[in-house]
């Protein structure tokens, strides 16, 4: 039993429905995004590279890769981040001392985010699921694969919201799972695979 995610880059249009769904579901504070979309193209978001009209652009959604060999857990001095048996790399805010060694160790820049100050929110009402751990000042936080939803038999919030049907999730050990079916027969890449992190996110190309 190992949770994994697949993202079909041919279908992804960079619409940000997944990043916003994540932000709402997890009541993320202002300027915190556990899931982001990078434009592989020009210098600014949503711009292509090349000379008009011979241009190229690709969108790359990035959240915690929930690595099989996570560099972050190895460096955490207080065991605030660790790997569960189902493959999810979790972050315990109560143990975290905000040293940010994990951020330095993680090769996937930006997936781990630090709440430098008291979390602030755009609206006064909390959003999302009340099973999400309350956000805290001076700790590191990141994608949980929506562990609180998985506990209820639901998929992570970013999956079902994808209007392009580009995101898949499930148990990679189960050939009948959505993620296994999505990967089957497809070429895929894993980000920075050469670093030996063995990410659980498959990018279908």
């Amino acid at each position, binding site marked *: 039993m190992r949770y994994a995610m697949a993202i079909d880059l041919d279908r992804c249009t960079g619409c940000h429905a997944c990043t916003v769904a994540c932000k709402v579901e997890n009541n993320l504070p*202002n300027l915190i995004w556990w899931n982001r979309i990078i434009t592989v193209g020009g210098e600014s978001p949503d711009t292509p590279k090349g000379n008009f009209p011979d241009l190229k652009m690709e969108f790359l959604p990035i959240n915690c890769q929930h690595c099989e060999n996570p560099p972050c857990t190895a460096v955490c001095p207080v065991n605030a981040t660790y790997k569960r048996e189902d493959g999810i790399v979790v972050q315990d805010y109560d143990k975290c001392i905000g040293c940010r060694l994990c951020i330095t160790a993680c090769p996937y820049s930006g997936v781990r985010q630090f709440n430098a100050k008291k979390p602030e929110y755009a609206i006064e009402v909390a959003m999302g699921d009340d099973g999400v751990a309350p956000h805290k000042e001076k700790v590191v936080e990141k994608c949980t694969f929506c562990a609180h939803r998985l506990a209820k038999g639901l998929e992570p919030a970013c999956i079902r919201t994808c209007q392009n049907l580009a995101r898949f999730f499930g148990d990679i050990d189960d050939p009948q799972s959505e993620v296994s079916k999505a990967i089957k027969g497809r070429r895929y890449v894993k980000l920075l695979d050469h670093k030996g992190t063995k990410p659980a996110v498959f990018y279908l190309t």
Partner: protein
Amino acid sequence: MFDIASGDYGFVNGCLGMYQRFANSIGASKLNVCYDQATGHGTDRVIGGGVWLWGSEPMTLLDAKKIIIWGSNPVYSTPQNWRIIKEAQRKGAKVIDIDVIYSATANKSDEFIPIVPGSDLMLALAMTNYIIGHNLINVPFMKARTTAPFLVRKDNGKMLRKSDFDSQTDPKEDDFYVWDSVANQPVLLKSGPKDVAIEGTYNVKGLDVETVFTLLKNHVKQYTVEKASELTKIPVEKIEYLARTYADSPTMVYTNYGIDHYQNGHLWAFAALVMASLTGNIGVKGAGFVGNYVMYMPLNYKGAFYTNGKAATSKIPQTIFHQVVKDQALAGKPYPIKAMLTFCSNSMSNMGQQNVWFTDILPNLDFHVVIDFELTDTARYADIVLPAAFWMEVDDLRVSYNNPYMMMQEKAIEPLYESKPPVEIFGMIARKMGLEKFFPQGVDDTYWVKMMLDTDALRKMNVTYDRLKAEKAVRVQGTSEKPYIRGEKYFLTKSAGRAQLYAENPLPRVNYGQDLSQITKKERLPYFKAPGEAWRDNPLFKKYPLVYIQEHSRYRVHSQWFNTPMLRELDPEPLAKISRKDAESRNIKTGDIVEVFNDRGRAVLKAEINDAMSPGVLSIPKGWQREQFIKGCYQELTSATSDPMAVNFAYFDCLVDVRKV
């Protein structure tokens, strides 16, 4: 004056709802909306159905072998349709994108064909000419489903009818003449000739006539691929390839309101639908037009809205509203307008040539009330703002756009703070005006939902309150196996339900007294009319050499969601997107503050060098409010000048220049 647009399509609390009951009860007038009207004005010439009923259900895209996305960016503007295009592409359909910029849709298409802004009409005309010249037409389709074989009188340009020879003909029994090619004589269409001629010049009882197709064929000969290549900057071979690809039916066209935003937009739609009719690419499986799919449903409009027997209306289009308010007159006759109620509309932000609000509209109105759930530019300048409850705080009824469902909208929470459901706001005002009989006290949204559903026609369709309440969404057109194809059985025309290749009597979309004498005859056939402003032959082009478009943003629907905090983290501020070539020649770099300007106004904002922009095109994605600019606003630059037939804001038909400040 009621100023209503498309901010919410609810049949109770939205722009299709009970404001009409209120407006009619007090005898108010309503502005004629001039957004996105040209495409439908052009399609109406060919297949009827008015401005809105031209698109097929988007699921029909799955049957297409080729999809030409023309002047549209569905990845941003209709993402719910893009995923269907993507699925069709995955199944093997070839997707070709024609656009002035390399959009996110161009990025995902199999082929991107850049085009000069506003020249799409010439491309369609030249493709049509090529298709006819190379005999790529679908003759059986033309004979059976179009007016190609109808005969046109050379003396007056009217179709030859039974009534031309028999003045006693009951107008309902009138019929069209065609040329029976077996018997070699003119016959009435209803007589059911075995075969008809689509080409030829004939004399019928002393009247010289020719077939509609002959007329069209001779007319489009002037639009050569070479001429089109010169204007569109698409290579000749590419235009020929496009024409052949299109004619090899079934081919679908995906379009919306990009080309609509030029002063020749309706002529492009006219030309495109004529081309579809010549090639059998309409009203059949796998072909047609998709982009805006609207359904007409037999709701209780009359019972719910017509309290005084008629509908609030006016001959005042938004495009000339500023002039009418300023003059307090229409076409030389007094037309006093002193008070205005704006609802479901951020008119100040969405109507072209924004500065007329400051010079002409606001100074000449005594009283302006805005009902909205966002503090829009229009609301900021109003005398009174009434906070409307949001969609999720009211019950309502919806007939969907771009999908075939009628839906029950159920509120998730009660209205917050001072906001109220719009129907309640109208009711409270109406009761103070002594109109309690039309707006009784103490009724809820459900009362009005049930009133709208109270028709025999809906009951016959088994669309009832109880069913909608139970199922939430009910498919009311087509089936999942057979999605709805527009015009599959017949077209909504007065030409025996046929697609019209010739518009005998072209009328303006709205007649406010404009001069049509020079164009009425021309408009019978699609012809090339250059964009009104954004064209290289315009002397203004030397002063303002950039065509200015306002793309649909990923993160807004027109101006809606301009102040949603989460979206502002992703997309914090307006940007002027400039091609690398145009930026370098003006020494502009990404992040520089620039002024985009013309004689009508300006916008001061951050620049972004964006290689998606075709050199000569500058874009500021639309919908940002005035306070979000350093100075000015994106809508100050656009023009209120419209084509006299389409009477539509031609937002992209606009020239500007840009400089570093």
